[in-house]
């Protein structure tokens, strides 16, 4: 399971994510939650303080709901790690970063097809967003 951030790939063992419901019910901290892309960001907000990582699911690279959900989570004050999980392509890396995500999780098959160099190039493409006149 490669995790991709601005520094490239890093390996991570398969994680046991909690559902949003379990996270809300849990009293533990440092939780990792898997959030479907049609879930409510507001509903999860009360548990933000106990969540270290939210992985937003992207069922397909063409389904852009996760980008809005990422922005919403950040707007509601989520300060932990935000991950886009699913078959994203490297061309979407800058969009994910622009929507408040810190990292992307892809599967091994995708990582074989789209190797680290592609993602690093995408991470360095500072023209991928048109930032003029738009704050942050």
């Amino acid at each position, binding site marked *: 399971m490669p995790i991709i951030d601005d520094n490239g790939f890093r390996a991570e063992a398969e994680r046991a994510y909690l559902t949003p419901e379990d996270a809300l019910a849990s009293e533990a901290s440092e939780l990792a939650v898997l959030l479907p892309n049609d879930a409510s960001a507001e509903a999860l907000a009360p548990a933000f303080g106990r969540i270290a990582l939210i992985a937003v699911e992207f069922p397909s690279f063409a389904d852009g*709901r996760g980008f809005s959900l990422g922005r919403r989570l950040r707007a509601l004050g989520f300060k932990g790690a935000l991950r886009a999980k699913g078959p994203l392509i490297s061309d979407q890396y800058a969009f994910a970063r622009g929507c408040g995500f810190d990292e992307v999780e892809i599967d091994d098959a995708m990582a074989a097809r789209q190797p680290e160099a592609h993602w690093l190039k995408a991470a360095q493409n500072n023209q991928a967003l048109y930032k003029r006149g738009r704050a942050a």
Partner: protein
Amino acid sequence: MYRYDEFDHDFVRARVATFRDQVARRVTGALTEEEFRPLRLQNGLYLQLHAYMLRIAVPYGTLSSRQMRQFALIADTWDKGYGHFTTRQNIQFNWPKLKDVPDILDALADVEMHAIQTSGNCIRNVTSDQFAGAASDEIEDPRPTCELVRQWSTNHPEFAFLPRKFKIAVTGSPNDRAAVKAHDIGLRMVRDDAGAPGYEVIVGGGLGRTPMIGKVVREFLPKDQLLRYLEAILRVYNLHGRRDNKYKARIKILVHETGLEELRAMIEAEFEAMDAPTFAPSAEEIARIEAYFAPPAFETVEGADAALEAAKAADPRFAAWVDTNVVDHREPGYAIATISLKAIGEAPGDATSEQMRVMADLAERYSFDELRVTHEQNIVLPHLRKDQLHEVYQALDAAGLGTANIGLISDMIACPGLDYCALATARSIPVAQDIARHFADPVVARDIGEMKIKISGCINACGHHHVGHIGILGLDKGGIENYQITLGGDATETAAIGERMGPGFPAEEVVPAIERIVETYKAERLNREETFLQTYRRIGAEPFKEALYPSEARHAA
């Protein structure tokens, strides 16, 4: 006119490099065809019936002569010597080869142009009034707003993978020439009671399979809140628009299924939750954009009107052209001319490279270097001195661009149809050509007066047939082309969807059917001032149905 600087220059160059890289990754298999497709589309490249088609963005339809000349160069170097101006105020080239596309994009980047977001499920090129900054009825110039929206929507990280395409149009005049009610979002520049500038926001208009007139979602939005409100609408749409069926994925369906009230509440809640200062462009940025749209240095021309009248008296063909193709400018001594790309018998919206160069030269010499593309597929010279109109006309006429038919029956919109489009069920260009030839006599056309015929080659409605005074929709009935006729459509501030008259007609019966509609109108109109649309609204569909399908035949059937 907006002037692109280093920033934009670097941006489009980088984008071309990215596209080259994407093509290379497609070739190695790093990108699958499915993954490459939206990237290709977001760079304006469609796969059509016979070849690729490249759609180039002309932001809000505004062009310089240098840019127009570059189109001519592209047409000559990589295409078949012509280009096609579209209802999106863009230009399309129908015959580029895939391997040439990065070179074409480089040639465009030389003049700060690109094909970004002219296709795909993203926010498309923003469109506007072709007379912006020149129209005598304008409340406020819509172009600074368009430019702001262009910048905001370009590569917007959140909205590049929407449920479906998204179109925004802006008008600054009460007379809507931008068809804002037929867009996903329409913006009308208005003032509140205290005189403060803002927008009326219209949402959920659109044509296609399920035509809908947009509804007002916010009666008055203060001007500085625009991007924040657009962001709220787009976020609600991105999260809630349907993704299970591409024919139900436009925002008009969300408006329809959710209900305007509920959707408004969702948008307002999103809007309230957003941090206002984040979205308000800085005052310096607004000032920078507005400065680019400052009026050109108009001159005070002594005797301009007298010179125009004298030229009209001396040249009746010129007088006829002025009558149809020229409208008032807000500046005394100036006029706005529309160059018809609807010469009788030609494909609507097509221009040869030679014609592009003529138009570019004229713009440079006489119109402060500006041209506009209209959604009705014509070209505008926005700022002409009245005493120079005759010279301009003569040069146009010599290049086959002097057709005097703006707003008349032969000034049709027609989509590419079966001649180019992979989705088409019938031809549309030949139908337009037949109608134009039939009504070619200028005396006949003038007698009919204002008439907008719009033709689509399938239910996707790119030819805007739903909002044509006469709409023609080409279908396929058991392998034979069949044309359905609607009447009473309107794309302006009094927008309406046309009403279907009855069973369709085979291709050869379309012209006779149009003839019967026209004859019915001429017999029923109160006087020559009453337009076809006014007559239709007054007397209703019945007399036209009777003319199209005589009741005897209807009962016998």
